């Protein structure tokens, strides 16, 4: 029987990795749910954000790099939206086009930073607290706080502001929303920019907590996709809550049974939800 410490530490570990799933899923969920764009390049952007953080961290504090990467990525997100709108790409085509873009970004990363593993050296990695029998690493806690802040802020933005009401109306019925004066084009640019900006923040968290390699872009796709689908397309809090669910389930699977079963967790959860709550999809 696993000890209480093992279970507790594993749950904490699941919460932390779940926060990263949620943060990665936030931008994907917005572009998929509100703009009908299945943006696979979101993962490549997040890794590009991680590499830029690594590059800039030689001169700046890793958190200060957000002042550069977030506006830069916001513009990149707007440019991507312009490109996809210009050619009126439907949902399937956005998937194909952004997959192509992913491979281009991956090749670019490989060209600049090589295919080898890259690790950002930071003093933050040495900070951790012990509370009772449990350890709380700073980098993971920062990821959790950033994920909760951004998801809550985005949820509030969608729920309580005119921007959010317009975005929800556009998602519901774009033509009718336009008739009521919603500027669909401008809204699309802002949402796409925000989604990419969230990728920049996820990139910082990836660089803080993980070793980077271009090929790892693909390792996150399956689980984050499952999280976004479980959490609900277009939802801001959904991917985070689904991320926690998946992260903790995976961690407990690894702590109690064979770790080799862990990758099955996210898709098993997804299938179970499709079976028992098909109305969500």
């Amino acid at each position, binding site marked *: 029987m*696993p*000890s209480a*410490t*093992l279970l507790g*530490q*594993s749950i*904490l*570990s*699941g919460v*932390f*990795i779940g926060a990263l799933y949620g943060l990665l899923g936030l931008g994907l969920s917005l572009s998929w749910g509100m703009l009908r764009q299945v943006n696979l390049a979101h993962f490549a952007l997040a890794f590009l954000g991680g590499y830029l953080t690594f590059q800039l961290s030689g001169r700046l504090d890793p958190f200060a790099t957000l002042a550069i990467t977030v506006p830069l990525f916001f513009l990149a997100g707007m440019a991507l939206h312009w490109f996809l709108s210009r050619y009126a790409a439907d949902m399937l085509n956005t998937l194909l086009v952004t997959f192509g873009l992913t491979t281009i970004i991956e*090749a670019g990363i*490989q060209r600049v930073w*090589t*295919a*080898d*593993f*890259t*690790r950002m*050296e930071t003093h933050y*990695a040495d900070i*951790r607290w*012990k509370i009772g029998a449990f*350890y709380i*690493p700073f980098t*993971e806690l920062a990821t959790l706080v950033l994920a909760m802040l951004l998801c809550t802020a985005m949820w509030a933005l969608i729920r309580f502001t005119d921007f959010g009401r317009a975005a929800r109306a556009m998602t519901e019925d774009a033509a009718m929303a336009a008739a009521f004066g919603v500027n669909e084009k401008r809204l699309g640019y802002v949402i796409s920019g925000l989604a990419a900006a969230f990728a920049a923040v996820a990139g910082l968290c990836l660089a803080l907590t*993980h*070793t980077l*390699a*271009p*090929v790892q872009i693909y*390792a*996150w796709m399956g*689980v984050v996709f499952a999280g976004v689908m479980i959490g609900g397309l277009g939802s801001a809090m959904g991917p985070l809550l689904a991320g926690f669910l998946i*992260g903790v389930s*995976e*961690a*407990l699977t*690894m*702590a109690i049974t*064979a*770790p*080799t079963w*862990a*990758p099955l967790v996210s898709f098993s959860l997804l299938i179970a939800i499709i079976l028992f709550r098909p109305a969500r999809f």
Partner: protein
Amino acid sequence: MRISRRRALAAGGALLSSAVLPSFAQGKPVRIGSSLPLTGPLASLGIIHKVTAEIYVENLNQRGGLLGRPVEWLLRDDQSKPELTRTIYEQLITADKVDLLQSPYATANILAGMGVAQRYGKLLLHTSFGIPRLAKYDMQFPVSGSAFDPENVWPNLILDAAAKLPKPPKTVAIVTSKFPSVHHISAGAREVLKKRGLQTVLDIEYEFGNRDFGPIASRVKDANADLLWGGTNGIDPVLMLEAMKRIDYRPPAQVHLFPAPGPMLKMPEAQGALALTTFESHPPFTDDPAIAQFVKTYGGRAKEAGIPYTAVDLQSAIMYAAWQVMEAAVTATNSLDDKTLAQWLKKNQVKCLFGTLSWNGPQNYVEGRDLYKVKQLQQGQWKVVHPQEWAAPGAKFI
């Protein structure tokens, strides 16, 4: 006939240069074809093989090439994909009409290339085939220095080394990736551990590409074994050690089969880690001036190519050995005929940069022994510590 002073000087110069300068190869090139993973998941290793082979071929051509002819190496990017490797080797033989084949990288890609080589009756040297029992083709020859039964030889080699640690282990925690070759070795290790009377207190497997090592680190900490047996490769050991650091745990002793050498260097938690190797850039390996020169040249070229870890180790050594074996066989037989070369290899030995290779055992391997060594990370440097005859000068187990 009157010879002008200029002509006389030119002729004298030519004679002198042929005597003291390297002899450059002439005539129709010997075409040698291969693929490497220059993109995709194995690209970080493919580039090491590429740089190594380029240095070797340059040097070979300066020494007169093969059979007095220059060597032309045709390299294709297989994108780390076995299906593409198969197509490339088919093209190299049928369209490019290469004289000889050189090794692709990694078990699956070598297996793909081996099938094509077998269909066309071509010799295939290979550098990195993890499951020897699957190599059934009569004209395939391993140059990695691995035994036919690495699942038996390597665990014994590592445990022999671990027994020399300041605190020899009695209990072991096995954490192994399901990546085929390291998984195969860890399966063998379970039996070897039993036979040697060591107690396995934890035995878990995880999928290759695992993102979160937190719960695994907690289980290792909970098990509190004397030795962590990491059936790991690539970046996994680093991720695992980082996860352990977050919960303030460091295994008393640790083995990682094939870690990416660079990222571990700076990690205080990785100091003392044991791993397998065939070659490290220190004496006695570098006692041979030609090898010392290669190590020096590789360092510069690797830096130019953006390879973070610029010392020659297992990866570059096996590629270098592949070319040494090819040169030795062609030179000895004075032939480029695949069957002639294969017959010669079966009956002879080749001294390479990490020992003497031979192929007189089952499926062109040797059984029960090999040329692998155990290295240990000491003060940011990988040093061979076992067996003693290959140990770095003054190196002691820590």
